């Protein structure tokens, strides 16, 4: 009997302690939620939007995106010392026959990675908009605050589609009304339609901001509180819309077709501050091309085309560098009337090529490193730039130039040209062409380093032939091969012989 009682007691203890000790096979993933879990709770939307802001930042600046860095070398803004990310493929030297983008590999990161990043963001934003359309309500202090979610979602949707419109020749347009199961190859839309949808979303954001006034925005969006209020959000949206219009042209001929009045309208109410992440900040610290032009040990440098532009009277400021440039010597320190040669750049001949032996980039290497926008490069502390107020102002100046207000345009141009460069060659009486040349000069020196796509957009659209992308350079990106294959479409590409232009053979 004793034994039976003992055994029964044992079984009772065992059974009562088995809760969660043994389990069925329906195991929930507790560390990575699925979409239903995420979207079913509107209080999570600010976190989602915060994640999108961080993803957007990382996509544009992060080292992982091999689609962005080639834009920086393709536009001769940066010169690579090593072959990382195939950057040397796009860096021009004398007599180079630039290749076309190899859009035949389903795994190549260029241009696939950024396409995936953008659609990852678009789908989350689309899901938020669809959930709100289906009745989800985000509340603050028990009051409906959906306008905050909507305005930020529209803004970010506009940001992403802006960048896609600027980069890719075609896109699938996914909105809150898209049935994802019915998408076919016919849904591919030209870049102009992408631009239109981007502007539509940005306008919707601006509309809400105008209606709601200077509201306190959600926390955790762009760093340094640069989206902290309704006004700041509106200015960002206006800046983005101005970019979307101004940077869209693929050629100088298309630039003349831009509605500059519309650009001016947006740009007049655009950035009032730089968009910066002050590091350390785990979500925003990116290993950027800018960081890699740091003074010590950087393997990317200031493109010789920039130095040649800034040092017009120095015969050593060669661009393009000859292919047989002496690999055992380097270019001597240059002279420039522009004060910024000494303030923004460092002459670092000790890093001459081949600095060691693996740097075989002597055909396009330069002895100048960046001494601006990279104060976080040494130890991960400091400011990491995405967009600057100067960039916003110069878009406005370009719109003014193109709409006849040269005086105001020159004033804006000279903010940096005189203020930082100590160059006094442009006045209100200068010609539009001279002012335009000065404006693009400023754009390359002031705006071309933080985000490497900016000089790419500038070089393809600039009306100044001397500043144009070199012949055979790609001017936009094709839909990645993997996506084309998925929808049964033939691969195509840009660059190489198809983009040869005798006007731009330097």
């Amino acid at each position, binding site marked *: 009997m004793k034994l039976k009682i003992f055994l029964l007691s044992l079984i009772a203890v065992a059974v009562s302690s088995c809760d969660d000790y043994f389990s069925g096979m329906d*195991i929930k993933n507790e560390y990575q939620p699925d979409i239903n879990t995420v979207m079913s709770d509107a209080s999570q939307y600010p976190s989602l939007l*915060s994640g999108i802001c961080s993803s957007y930042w990382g996509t544009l600046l992060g080292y992982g995106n091999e689609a962005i860095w080639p834009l920086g070398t393709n536009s001769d803004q940066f010169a690579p010392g090593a072959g990382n990310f195939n950057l040397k493929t796009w860096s021009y030297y004398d007599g180079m026959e630039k290749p076309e983008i190899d859009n035949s590999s389903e795994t190549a990161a260029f241009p696939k990675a950024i396409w995936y990043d953008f659609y*990852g963001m678009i789908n989350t934003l689309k899901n938020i908009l669809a959930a709100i359309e289906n009745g989800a309500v985000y509340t603050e202090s028990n009051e409906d605050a959906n306008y905050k979610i909507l305005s930020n979602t529209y803004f970010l949707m506009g940001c992403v589609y802006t960048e896609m419109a600027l980069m890719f020749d075609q896109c699938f347009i*996914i909105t809150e009304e898209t049935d994802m199961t019915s998408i076919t190859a016919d849904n591919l839309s030209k870049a102009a339609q992408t631009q239109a949808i981007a502007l539509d979303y940005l306008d919707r954001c601006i509309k809400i901001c105008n209606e709601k006034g200077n509201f306190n925005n959600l926390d955790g969006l762009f760093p340094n509180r640069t989206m902290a209020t309704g006004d700041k959000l509106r200015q960002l949206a206006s800046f983005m819309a101005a970019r979307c219009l101004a940077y869209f042209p693929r050629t100088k001929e298309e630039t003349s077709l831009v509605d500059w009045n519309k650009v001016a309208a947006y740009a007049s109410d655009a950035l009032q501050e730089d968009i910066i992440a002050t590091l*350390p900040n785990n979500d925003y610290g990116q290993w950027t091309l800018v960081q890699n032009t740091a003074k010590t040990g950087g393997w990317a440098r200031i493109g010789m085309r920039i130095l040649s532009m800034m040092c017009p009277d120095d015969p050593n400021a060669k661009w393009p560098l000859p292919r*047989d440039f002496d690999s055992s010597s380097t270019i001597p320190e240059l002279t420039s009337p522009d004060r910024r040669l000494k303030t923004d750049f460092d002459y670092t001949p000790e890093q001459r090529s081949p600095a060691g*032996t693996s740097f075989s980039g002597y055909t396009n290497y330069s002895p100048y490193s960046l001494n601006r926008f990279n104060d976080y490069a040494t130890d991960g502390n400091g400011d990491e730039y995405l967009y600057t107020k100067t960039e916003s102002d110069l878009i406005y100046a370009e719109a003014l130039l193109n709409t006849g207000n040269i005086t105001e345009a020159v004033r804006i141009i000279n903010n940096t040209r005189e203020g930082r460069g100590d160059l006094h060659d442009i006045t209100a009486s200068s010609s539009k062409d001279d002012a335009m040349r000065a404006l693009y000069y400023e754009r390359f020196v002031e705006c071309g380093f933080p985000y490497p796509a900016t000089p790419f957009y500038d070089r393809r659209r600039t009306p100044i032939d001397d500043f144009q992308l070199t012949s055979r350079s790609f001017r936009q990106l094709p839909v990645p091969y993997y996506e084309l294959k998925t929808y049964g479409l033939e691969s195509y590409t840009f660059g190489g012989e198809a983009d040869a232009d005798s006007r731009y053979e330097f």
Partner: protein
Amino acid sequence: MTKKELPLKVFLLAVAGLMAPVAISASPGTESAIAQSSRENNFVAGGIVTDSNGDPLLGVSVLVVGSNAGTTTGLDGEFKINVKKNDRLRFSYVGYNTVEMTASENMKVEMSEDNRLLSEVIVTGVAKGTSREKLAFNVEKVQNSALKEVTGTSVASTLAGKMPGIKVLPTTGNPNDEPIIQLRGALSFASTGQPLIIVDGIVTSGSLNDINMEDVENIEVIKGAAAASFYGSKAAAGVISITTKRGSSLENGKIDVTFKSEVGTSWVGFMPERTTAHGHVVDAAGNITSVIENDGIWDNKYDMSHDSYDDFFGHRLFTTNTLGISGRSASGDVNYYVSIQNTLNPGVIKKLKGVNRTSFRSNLEAKLSRTVTLTTSNMFVRKKSDNRNINFDDIFYADPNADFNAPNIDGTPYKINPNTVSTRNNPNPLYTFENSRAEGHSYRYLGLYALRYRPIEWLSLNANYSLDFSNSYSYYLSPKGNLKVSSPDGTDRELGSISTSSWNNFKHNLEIGALFSKSFGDFNTTLKLQYLYEDDKYKSVYGAGSKLAVSGMDNISLELANPETLDINSNGNRIVSNSYTAVFQGDYNGEYMLDALIRRDGASVIGNDDMWNTYYRISAAWNIAKTFKLPYINYLKPRVSYGTAGILPAYGAKYETYSMSAGSLYGASQMGNSKLKAALSRELEIGLDIKFLDRFDVALTYSHKRNTDLPYVMAVSGITGFSYQNVNLGEFFAKSYEVTVNANILNSNDFSWNVTGTWDRLTQRVGDLGRPDFQSGNLYINSNERYGKLYGTKFARSLDEVRTHKDIKPGQTAEDLFTINNYGYVVRKDRIGTTEESHMYVLDEKGNNKKVYLGNMNPDFNLNLTNTLFWKNFTFYFTMSWQQGGMLFNNTKMYMSFAGRNAALWDQSEKPWAARKSYSYTNQHPTESFMEDASFLKMREIALNYHFTRKQFQRIGIKFIDGIKLGVIGRNLFTITKFSGPDPETRTIESGVLNGIETPKYPSDIRTVTGTITIEF
């Protein structure tokens, strides 16, 4: 034999002994003649039978050859038997080689253990322990001599070279790291499935390195689905089953205590040759500057009176001490084994402490009643590891004569910037070691509790519960204030960083089974039914930060870090599986064998649509030598087996996921797959086991595997918002031929020589991929082609190979621009003999560098040879391995070449002037220059042992010592190879694929010489 059995045996022997006179008395006509003959020729032979250790053997069968007369040895190994003059006696005992000797009055018979294949009992993958003779499929077993003579440092190293069809590939030489084990090749073109590890019947989830090899009784290995179906959805990559000691073979009332100590030294065997020449300007004071000479030729010699390798690598003390106690109660109802072992393996790098592991084991088997037996296994392991590490570039790229021991400017040891011409700002690795802390502490408990109830002779019911619990904690501290290589005077110092992580894994299994075992005449049958529940949970947390508040290395708290820099994450998973198995084994008089198995498996990691799979096995064998009398053939058994097994998807592969980090939900990452399946392996195995001339065992096995539904991470359309999805696709074939020959070449009282040779050849082929062909590094994975093809760039040797060069303008030919230089390579005519001379690459039709086929990474064949020679009390043992073929990309050499450090490509100092080339020529890196034949001949283990027996001690009056074994063991003492990297056997996994590459890392060619002493009392 228990004491209770002894009277019975004595009675039977007495009866048997009486039978002879009774029989004789039944033949009265011959009585007087026999009596006369007996008086002349009969005598009582006798003596003692011992094992090779001098221990008496109980129950040895002693037969008069050519008659039915016989007896068995008693408790003290002694026997007596009536024989005639010149009669020969045959001594036989299970597990020992049979001995025949002429009968005499004071015989001393020493029996050696039988290591031959067919006498072994197999317990893995079968319903119950089964002699290999009755097995219808191949199960390998590491031979006792291998375990005894050179106890491996780990299970993996023990398996290397011991059987055909197994590859043990070290990933690094770091004592913390585990090798990759492949059984009959890869599971797939896109993953490296590892074998299922079973310890004392427990399906485990932890590290193989935790197993104390001194505890191991035997290791069995199943190499494919034809045998592994018993383990279902986890066993397609094979099974390694380890059985530990539990004193079950001891005599009643006996306690054996064994103390073993092994002490020796380890050192790095091979280091890649660095150039001892440079191309830098030497100033008037004789100092090497950072300026490269105009000729760019690496022909100025370093002063090699100092070698930086010597500062970094050294001889390190390796020790292992083990105390083991095994015993059996006087009644024979309880037997046990307990042990404690400490191993200190510091590796081969100075200043690093390596791994210090202490393991405890307690195994018990107790008959609780006539019908109930309790079995327990308990292992506890504590491991402390020195996790300080460096980028091995810091040693491979360093100046060959850099002085790592020189002081810094501030007087602290280990100059942070020891290199004069090194180009990559590599810090002094010794400075890194001296000025950082990194440790790992891990604890593991592995326990089994099994009850077996045998109510009737033919039925046994069992319930087993097992636990496998691991906990690990590690931290890394690089303190604030460390010198920077870019600022050796200390003006700019490191801000410091810290990280800490912790994880635990809890796996528990519950098994309930029934074993029916009954003979119907000559027909022996066994049926096993089993239910198994497995539950595996893992959780981890990690935190890291930088910009530390204080300097020094006393504090390892994360609180030191600036809160803004903190990065914290956690992770976890749980895998639950259930299985129901029925396995039938039957044989008719040991002549015809049949085995059939079916298993139904369900697992939580499989897609929700159908979590269950069915696996099966059908096997048959026929011992022809039992059916037909065959001259010289003792045994001839063709066998055939066909079975299926699986590999489960990784945890999380089926889920739709959103990624999260630092308080934000980032976005969709993985598309869910409710149809995700386990990979399926189908294997046909055909074999022939032969035993002939009483000395030779041969096993021939052919296996053909077809693996389908392979796990693959597939990119999905970007517009879905997801990046990828885990899917099943493709097929992969592996065909292997295996031969094992075990020969007892010589066997006499004083001398015995056993040889085991194994040979295997494996070919793997990708079937229909189910997706476009793709590459993983240099490895090209193409549908319907042989697996393992490596491609890469190559220097042109013919002008035909550069005709599409882009420098050739319209109207020009290759001959106008290019020529062949004095090394036979294509170069530009206008640069030949200048500092700008460089190779041209073989080009494709578009003028781009062409990827050409450079060889297959898989070897043509593998051959292993194990020899064991016994002479008196000496044992000489060695295992050698020969791998023929197999290309390996020498990444270490390429990286060294990038840095101007590789001797073969850069050093021009010994060449005549006309043959010297500038760095434009030497600084080129086509794949072909680093793709090398990884054939090798390796001396894996060699040992010489001397065994002092109990008798020897008794002679000098020491009675409490049963034996002492002294030995010298060498491990991996030499490798003969043309491969110029650190180890032709090492491999690297990239993106889950073993793709024929080695990388700069802790070198794995480590040599060890140790002395051992084993005391038994």
